[in-house]
């Protein structure tokens, strides 16, 4: 309780009061308050879409709040631009790496506040030197003069961290900084955070990984559906309590997995490899089975799945569907053969924003709804109505632009789109990413139902509860290879994480 | 009611045609019952002229007098105009015979062809290399004059035509082509440019290359545009017919045709103060000899056109 009294006596470095923010159709934040204290790490916890990143963007001047005030050292301030937040001493590592591929590492770090010489011109020598120094501080061995595009995802993230530290800030925000990092880098980051803490910085740390939250945080704040539902000292809570706050009920109910009789093999993949992305992929998928693919971000699951539907070409390997060898050169051919892929990047690869809901749903099935190449709108509406209703879509009309739907509802349209092709095998890549619990349940229930009817499902997911809740079998991938296979009976969160992170059982 | 005569030019804004318009207005005043519609496209294209012709046909003008950007491409549009009872003549730059009742040459082609080479030869008693800078590749008249020039080339001893290049009636292209000529032919003594755009650009290029006195630029040009270059010495002399008289005559001929005169070989058409023009077997007539301008008279004419 000593710590409690110390922090409450300290003045917050930055405080948010009654912040609200809405997007068309979504209330991302409603009247949340949050204080960050010097020399202390506050963990911000919440499900996908709870509003964490939105809060970060408000704190860094990228979004403007609809209501509420921000106080820096007790004084009310506004951050009309990202630069003004930086001047006020707030810096952030954002969830998406927002960097410039074509610029050098050093420039990525200092863009917007580069050191200048006495003529007001950018001083490249000092810039490169300072960048080298900063990179050393974060423990990354990167040449600051090379182009950013030549770095891997983990190093890019280290550059983003260096960029955040290049601003002499009193408040440091980290939005899922470890998601793309490997073991070694994560430990360096922990050390860095310890140092920042010792320097008296106020730190906001967002993460879905409870082990690291308990490792580095002093305080916690939990968000649910855009509202704050709890805060306090880490020392006073257990993981179960935090999860319960986050989700609002016991977790078990979310995954209505029905046991179905698993049939003969439908899809057989053998010896699949690609020069740079993956190799030695062998597995079988059986009728009625839900096969989970687990791994950390960047493990290459998406790349492999996309090669199955002809987006990229594997350099070797064979696919058999119902015992017959298939050569698939494009998604169109995959759909014809009965293998469909629901992509992970909804905005870029899934939804066609600008087209109405029904046209999104029927796009891959047009050959069935049309007659000799001519559209039949009535058929299209019927097909779209059938599938969207079963996924419990909420929309004003089927003629509405998908762009006007909330993320979860967009995801339902995307899933409906590929289900409407009546596939034999469906590959779902992060199917419930960014959708609310109710919709998640609807998607999972439908998945179970389809498996019961004999559809085979591959489910790529980075959410352990989803994997353990829904999969009959799990394959774990790491750096482009299969590193573990688990039956439902032997599944545990710990085993999955260890396999995915490359930590041996003994350690 | 006034008779409407349209004077269609290659492109609006060219000094030569503005001067022709002056002549047409003069004719209109003299005739009393004529309204001149002075028009043309804004760049020298056949398609632009066709759109202009279409709108003139729609306005039911009584006559069209045109200086053509393309001898052949205008024929269908002008034929249609004639079908609707409009008298069509061409002047300066001609239209193929099917597309007009008659063509008024500013001067006769052989005379011009002879004139331009004579202008060069007059200042080259010992002969030497000369090059031709022509106008737009699609212009009709230039190429005819160059042909005529080549026919009489033998009469000028020692004059050696080494090249013909095209400036497309664009100042910058003509300039660059002239530079190319100066580069390629170190012994070049004269450049003949039978086009008012080309001659100016060529004179400028010669001055910029420091070749004044070495290369003489001559051909056909407007006194107002050439006065500076004659003074600078890059052009010793050049020739042109009087565009005012040309516009005047074209208007008079058109009026004569509206009044019922018939354009056929051998016919004589009235041109007011310019007398009459006699048509040859192609229904073409020539106005007069080109007139030579040099340091002695160019300033005086520069004030007029």
């Amino acid at each position, binding site marked *: 309780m000593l710590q409690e009294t110390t922090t409450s006596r300290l003045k917050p470095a930055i405080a948010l009061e009654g912040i609200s923010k809405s997007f068309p159709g979504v209330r991302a934040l409603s009247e949340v308050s949050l204080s960050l204290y010097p020399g202390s790490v506050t963990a911000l916890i919440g499900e996908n879409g709870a509003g964490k990143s939105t809060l970060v963007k408000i704190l860094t001047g990228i979004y403007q709040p609809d209501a509420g005030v921000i106080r820096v050292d007790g004084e009310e301030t506004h951050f009309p631009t990202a630069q003004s937040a930086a001047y006020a001493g707030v810096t952030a590592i954002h969830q998406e790496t927002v960097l410039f591929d074509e610029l050098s590492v050093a420039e990525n770090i200092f863009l917007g506040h580069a050191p200048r010489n006495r003529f007001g011109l950018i001083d490249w020598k000092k810039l490169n030197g300072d960048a080298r120094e900063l990179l050393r501080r974060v423990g990354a061995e990167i040449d600051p003069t090379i182009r950013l595009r030549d770095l891997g995802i983990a190093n890019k993230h280290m550059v983003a961290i260096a960029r955040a530290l290049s601003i002499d800030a009193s408040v440091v925000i980290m939005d899922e900084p470890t998601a793309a990092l490997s073991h070694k880098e994560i430990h360096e980051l922990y050390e860095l955070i310890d140092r920042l803490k010792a320097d008296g910085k106020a730190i906001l740390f967002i993460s879905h990984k409870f082990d690291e939250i308990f490792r580095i945080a002093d305080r916690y704040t939990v968000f649910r559906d855009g509202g704050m539902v709890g805060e306090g000292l880490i020392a006073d809570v257990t993981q179960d309590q935090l999860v319960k706050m986050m989700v609002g*009920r016991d977790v078990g*109910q979310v995954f209505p997995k029905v046991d179905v009789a698993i049939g003969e093999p439908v899809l057989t993949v053998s010896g699949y490899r690609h020069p740079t992305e993956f190799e030695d992929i062998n597995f079988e998928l059986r009728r009625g089975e839900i096969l989970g693919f687990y791994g950390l971000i960047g493990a290459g699951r998406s790349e492999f799945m996309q090669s199955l*539907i002809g*987006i990229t070409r594997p350099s070797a390997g064979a696919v058999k569907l119902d015992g017959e060898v298939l050569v698939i050169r*494009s*998604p*169109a051919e995959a759909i014809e053969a009965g293998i469909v*892929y629901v992509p992970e990047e909804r905005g870029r*690869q*899934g939804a*066609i*924003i*600008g*087209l109405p809901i*029904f*046209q999104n749903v029927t*796009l*891959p099935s*047009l*050959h069935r709804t*049309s007659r000799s*190449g*001519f*559209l039949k709108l009535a058929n299209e*509406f019927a097909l779209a*109505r059938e599938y*969207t209703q*079963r996924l*419990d*879509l909420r*929309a*004003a*009309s089927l*003629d509405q632009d998908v762009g006007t739907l909330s993320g979860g509802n967009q995801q339902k349209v995307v899933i409906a*789109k590929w289900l409407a092709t009546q596939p034999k095998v469906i590959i779902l890549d992060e199917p419930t990413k960014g959708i609310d619990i109710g919709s998640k*349940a*609807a998607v999972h*229930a439908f998945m179970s139902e389809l498996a019961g009817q004999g559809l085979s499902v591959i489910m790529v997911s980075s959410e352990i509860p989803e994997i353990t809740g829904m999969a009959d079998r799990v394959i774990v991938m790491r750096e482009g290879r299969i590193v573990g296979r688990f039956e439902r009976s032997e599944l545990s969160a710990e085993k999955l994480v260890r396999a995915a992170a490359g930590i041996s059982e003994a350690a | 009611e006034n008779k409407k005569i349209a004077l269609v030019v290659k492109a609006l804004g060219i000094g030569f045609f503005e001067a022709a318009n002056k002549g047409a207005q003069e004719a209109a005043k003299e005739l009393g019952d004529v309204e001149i519609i002075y*028009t043309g*496209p804004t760049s020298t*294209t*056949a*398609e632009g002229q*066709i759109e202009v012709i*279409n*709108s003139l*046909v*729609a*306005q*039911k003008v009584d006559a069209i007098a045109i200086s053509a950007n*393309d*001898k*052949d*491409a205008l024929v*269908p549009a002008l034929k249609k105009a004639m079908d609707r009872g409009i008298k069509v003549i061409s002047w300066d730059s001609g239209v*193929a015979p099917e597309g007009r009742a008659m063509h008024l040459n500013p001067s006769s082609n052989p005379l011009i062809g002879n004139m331009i080479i004579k202008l060069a030869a007059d200042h080259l008693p010992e002969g030497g290399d000369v090059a031709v800078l*022509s106008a737009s*590749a*699609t212009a009709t008249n230039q*190429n005819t004059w160059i042909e005529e020039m080549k026919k009489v080339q033998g009469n000028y001893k020692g004059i050696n035509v080494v090249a013909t290049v095209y400036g497309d009636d664009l100042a910058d292209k003509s300039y660059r082509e002239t530079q190319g000529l100066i580069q390629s032919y170190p012994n070049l003594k004269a450049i003949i440019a039978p086009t008012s755009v080309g001659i100016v650009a060529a004179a400028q290029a010669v001055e910029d290359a420091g070749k004044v006195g070495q290369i003489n630029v001559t051909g056909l040009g407007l006194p107002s545009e050439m006065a500076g270059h004659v003074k600078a010495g890059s052009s010793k002399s050049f020739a042109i017919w009087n565009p005012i008289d040309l516009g005047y005559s074209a208007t008079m001929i058109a009026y004569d045709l509206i009044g019922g005169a018939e354009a056929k070989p051998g016919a004589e058409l009235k041109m007011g103060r310019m007398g009459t023009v006699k048509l040859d077997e192609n229904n073409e007539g020539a106005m007069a000899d080109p007139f030579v301008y040099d340091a002695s008279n160019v300033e005086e004419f520069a004030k007029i056109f």
Partner: protein
Amino acid sequence: MAERTLSPRVIPDRLQSRGNRLLKSWESLLLVVAVLIFTINSFASPYFLDPWNLSDATFNFTEKAMIAFAMALVIIAGEIDLSVASIIALSSTAMGLAVSFGFDTPVLIAVGLGTGLVCGMINGLLITGLGLPSIVVTIGTMSLFRGLSFIILGDKAFTGYPASFAYFGQGYVWWVFSFEFVLFALFAAIYSVLLHKTNFGRAVYAIGNNQTAALFSGVRVGRVKFILFLLTGLMAGIASICLTSRLGSTRPSIALGVELEVVTMVVLGGVSILGGSGTIPGVVLAAFIMGMVTFGFGLLNVPGIVMSIFIGVLLISVIALPILWARARRRVAH
């Protein structure tokens, strides 16, 4: 939290009736503009309301509009083809060459169409085969195709087209309806159906709105785009036949600058230059508007360049006005 029941909720197909939507559309705005220009023209000039004159006026836009239909599809799919005017020139040159070898009309037609198709194929292969940006590729082929005409023709011209060839640009099908106008109407119908009523048209929209998602959804993106460039090539070939027939001659500078007029027509017709939206009726209306403006100004002997200022202002303002209007309404709502 109570478990949410999966009670099926019926989502209506449409909220707005078709009529209601039509009223608020871009096309109705264009229609108003077109009617306005028509009315102003008929008051401004006594010669405007004459069937033959109106018929002549259609030649101001028919050839460009035929290309604009195919261009609309290309732009909706998120690409652009700036080489169309040069394809006209090269097709015309090829036909002229055929004439000089003594071929007759049927062969000329085949040569004209064939050249257009080959040019379209070259664009298509460079853009979809090598994955190059269409704006740069077609700036390149724009110079290349016209350059080839210049190499073939130099300062010469092809003339002497057979008499029967004159029909395509100068013939009348019935009364004041020229062959070109009838062809224009026919293509307006064909392209309307192709874009709005077929699977192919739907694929075009899908590609324009989100090419990656369209690919993932089983649209053969490369093939569709390739066909689109073939179509612009083909339409440029057809326009070339009409224009060559109308002029009765070929010079390499034929149809200079037409590509910008075609693009202007398409954008004025409400096609988003960023791809993804637009309709053929919009383009048809834009064609009429541009034709009427040119002809109306022409009757008043206004120089062509003043018309182009007008078109330029029209282009920017019809796009800016809805944006400003929406902004003003939002301000009032606040």
